[in-house]
């Protein structure tokens, strides 16, 4: 697969994303400069973490105006997979590709540490290899990770199963204590209604190899890759190529023998 990693001025997890997709998962990676206006030919797009434009004004607020974001929007509307990690999530919120907004962490400090998240929706292209309710240990590193949305939006996120990850205790209980930043409803990651755009504050690319003390993040990135491969196979067989309305049909659950290492087991 050819994964595009967008480089904004101030991106600083772009190299990490390239490394994990290219060197750990064996995929092709294309670095996409933020001034480019086309993202054609890519199988998925990653908006990496960092401090795009220094996070001046508000996290992601300037990056959303980068020329590449118009192409990313079109790409997403056509059903392409878009993963925003940390600052990438913040940019997706500012760009309106995902609903809601980010506030400062409750502590008002930057927080870098391992947290636990519970997979609330294992039927997305990003969680296809996970079990529903699975607990993953993944680091966070942000100052603005307190997710917020109005009650109507939150209700619709819940109704459509768009809440993909929630902060939890190691045993999977979703508690106040497990919430590192005050995020509404312990939300750590959400997807759009079609399921092809995911934003998450934790950094799966930082825990995809056992030498980094934990490889739970690998299951998310590998789910993406395996899902894309499966989609390509399906397309080649002509089984699925149409787009129904605004909703891309993407085989998401890994069924045929796909087992990916990592994860903390079921709850």
């Amino acid at each position: 697969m050819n994964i595009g990693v967008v480089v904004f001025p101030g991106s600083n997890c772009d190299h990490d994303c390239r490394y994990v997709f290219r060197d750990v998962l064996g995929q092709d990676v294309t670095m996409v400069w933020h001034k480019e206006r086309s993202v054609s030919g890519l199988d998925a797009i990653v908006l990496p973490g960092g401090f795009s434009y220094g996070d001046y004004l508000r996290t992601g607020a300037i990056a959303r105006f980068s020329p590449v974001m118009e192409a990313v929007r079109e790409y997403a509307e056509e059903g392409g997979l878009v993963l925003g990690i940390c600052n990438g999530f913040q940019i997706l919120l500012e760009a309106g590709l995902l609903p809601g907004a980010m506030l400062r962490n409750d502590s008002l400090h930057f927080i870098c540490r391992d947290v636990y998240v519970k997979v609330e929706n294992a039927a997305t292209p990003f969680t296809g290899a996970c079990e529903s309710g699975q607990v993953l240990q993944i680091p966070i590193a942000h100052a603005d990770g307190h997710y917020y949305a109005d009650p109507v939006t939150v209700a619709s996120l819940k109704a459509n199963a768009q809440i993909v990850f929630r902060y939890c205790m190691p045993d999977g209980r979703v508690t106040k204590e497990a919430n590192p930043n005050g995020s509404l409803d312990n939300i750590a990651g959400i997807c759009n209604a079609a399921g092809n755009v995911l934003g998450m504050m934790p950094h799966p690319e930082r825990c995809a190899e056992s030498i980094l003390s934990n490889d739970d993040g690998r299951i998310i990135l590998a789910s993406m890759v395996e899902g894309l491969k499966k989609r390509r196979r399906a397309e080649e067989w002509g089984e699925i190529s149409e787009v129904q309305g605004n909703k891309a049909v993407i085989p998401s659950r890994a069924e045929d023998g796909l087992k990916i290492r990592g994860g903390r087991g079921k709850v």
Partner: protein
Amino acid sequence: MPPITDDLIAQHHLTRDEYQRIVTILGRDPNLTELGMFSVMWSEHCSYKSSRVHLNKLPTSGPRVVQGPGENAGAVDIGDGLCAVFKMESHNHPSFIEPYQGAATGVGGILRDIFTMGARPIALLDSLRFGELNVSQNRRLMKGVVAGIAGYGNCMGVPTVGGETVFNEIYSLNPLVNVLCLGIAEKDKIFRGAAAGIGNPVIYFGSKTGRDGIHGATMASDSFDDESERKRPTVQVGDPFQEKLLLEACLELMAADLLVGIQDMGAAGLTSSSCEMASRAGTGIELDVALVPRREPGMTPYEVMLSESQERMLMVAKAGKEDECIAICRKWDLDVAVIGWVTGDGVLRVKDQGTIVAEIPAKALADEGPRYDRPYSPPAYQDLLTNLNYDVIPDVKDANAALLSLLESPTIASKRWIYEQYDHMVRTNTVVRPGSDAAVVRIKGTPKAVAMTIDCNSRYCLLNPYEGARLAVAEAARNLVCSGAEPIGLTDCLNFGNPERPDIMWQFVMAVEGLADACEFLKIPVVSGNVSFYNETNGLSIYPTPMVGMVGLIDRVERAMTQWFKEEGDDIILLGATRDDLGGSEYLKIMHSREQGSPPFLNMEAEKALHDCVLTLVRGGLVQSAHDCSDGGLAVALAESCLSAPGRQLGAAVQLTRGRLRKDAVLFGESQSRVVLSAKPAHREAVLERAKSFAVPAAVIGTVGGDRLVVSLGDERSAANVIDAPLSTLHDRWARSLERVLNET
């Protein structure tokens, strides 16, 4: 231009003799711009005028040394065609005046030193000293400094992986902020700051020049008093986003093979970068300040040449490559301008719209400043500090309570409150995170990793600066071998008081000689460093604090070792001998309010044998954990081995014998050359045998397991539990102490 008066000379912190020297060099009186340029370049901060004669004693060569002191940073060969480029620098004075920006720009400055050499920075460490946290001003300073380091380092995407923080009243009015940065470069693609090639263009790029930080270097070469708050305008303001762009642009420029030389504009800004680059190449530079991108109108040549605005660089490009350089800078949205060219006459010639405003021989400005061999003699109070009659200090009655007090003292307590504010994982190389003896960062594309640590016990240095400096080197090396790394290079940051005082100068000279002797013995070259004098306020000096940053190499990253116990049933083995070493201990300070006595005894041969032994054991896969015994002694080292595990914590049952030693010396004395190991019982004999072969004392002192730390102390006839506490209690005291005290308002 105003006439040069005695007042003006004094305001520039130049002595009458130094002024005369300037007149001799120029063959005339300087104008104001020239006076300003001399004053910053000849400041203590830039010229090392009081320290240079002693720094020459440090060993700086070795088979791995690619670049020793004198460049922007040092470089050491790590094989695979790569080298580790590193340096440590202080930003003490600005951080006291304005903690957030002072610390932030300290990070910015050292990062530039590293990427200027062509290395991508991969790790930052910070060594901090503050006053006691029961004083609100000290809490404010600490919060500001930590936030400043986080704000800059996190935005740059360079992980802050380690360091140390120590609290002592003496730093209340003069905190220390020392930052170490390490980068990786290809060995044959190291860039140096030399303006070679007559006619080559001199290009300015980065941020615009403003009026901030004028005379920052001079401020950093002065003591403080109650008026120091007013010096806030001399502190620069950092913009990490600009620096991130600068970093990427520099590495792109270097990869494109366009440059002859490059240097960042740190202290003394455009003046230092231009004259130092010319001096190194034996050339001159002619530049026009009117071409320098500016933040505000009406700046004088004096202001432009002395501004310490951050995030600026000067490069000398290959002739004809200007346009390519400019295109890369523009891609990264940086200001860029060709401001002059390299000349052959050795003169730094500054023009303003074509009119000459300063003309100084570059070498004289950069390298021929005054050198002082200042008088030094031990202070009269030195004997009072070291003579301590232990008979008046009762032995410990409640060791359990003493251990708890030590664990929650901020110097020993977990620094999680600090390092969780730093992104310590970005770049996905951090194999051992903060909270072990040394940080370990892998080198992608190789099987290797580097380990890094900063150490200095300034109380030891106060009591005996020579021994204190040797102890700092020994401890740093011990921390590295405990992590499985072979020490390969050292950078220092020498923080002292006013060198014009003979007692302070004595501390400095003794410390440098201690460093030199220890490095010589352990064959660790000093490849870079920094001196910070005038760390005193209202006449009160800090303790002598020669910070030692050390870098080690791990051949196979998977063999990196950590300090915490791993498995129930493992043997706990103590390497090294325990002596009566209570002098200068954290225990005496916390429990008896004494900072007295002689620092612990250090036998370098025994220390070296211990290093070789530990490295062999770790590399041989014979141990599960290794932890250096330092502040708080054996009891604290055991507690940390139990408590610092990121996952499940394991207790320990330990039996110690005291022989003829005091109880408190056995438990809390800080005898050197000791390491607490844990090993599978199946490896017990092999470990003991190896230790014997290195002539390192070794004893099985207990077993890992349970949820308590239990230590008994006795002789052959009887033993009693002197420490017995649940891990939950110990952990609460140790892990939450900092946040508890910092949450007080």
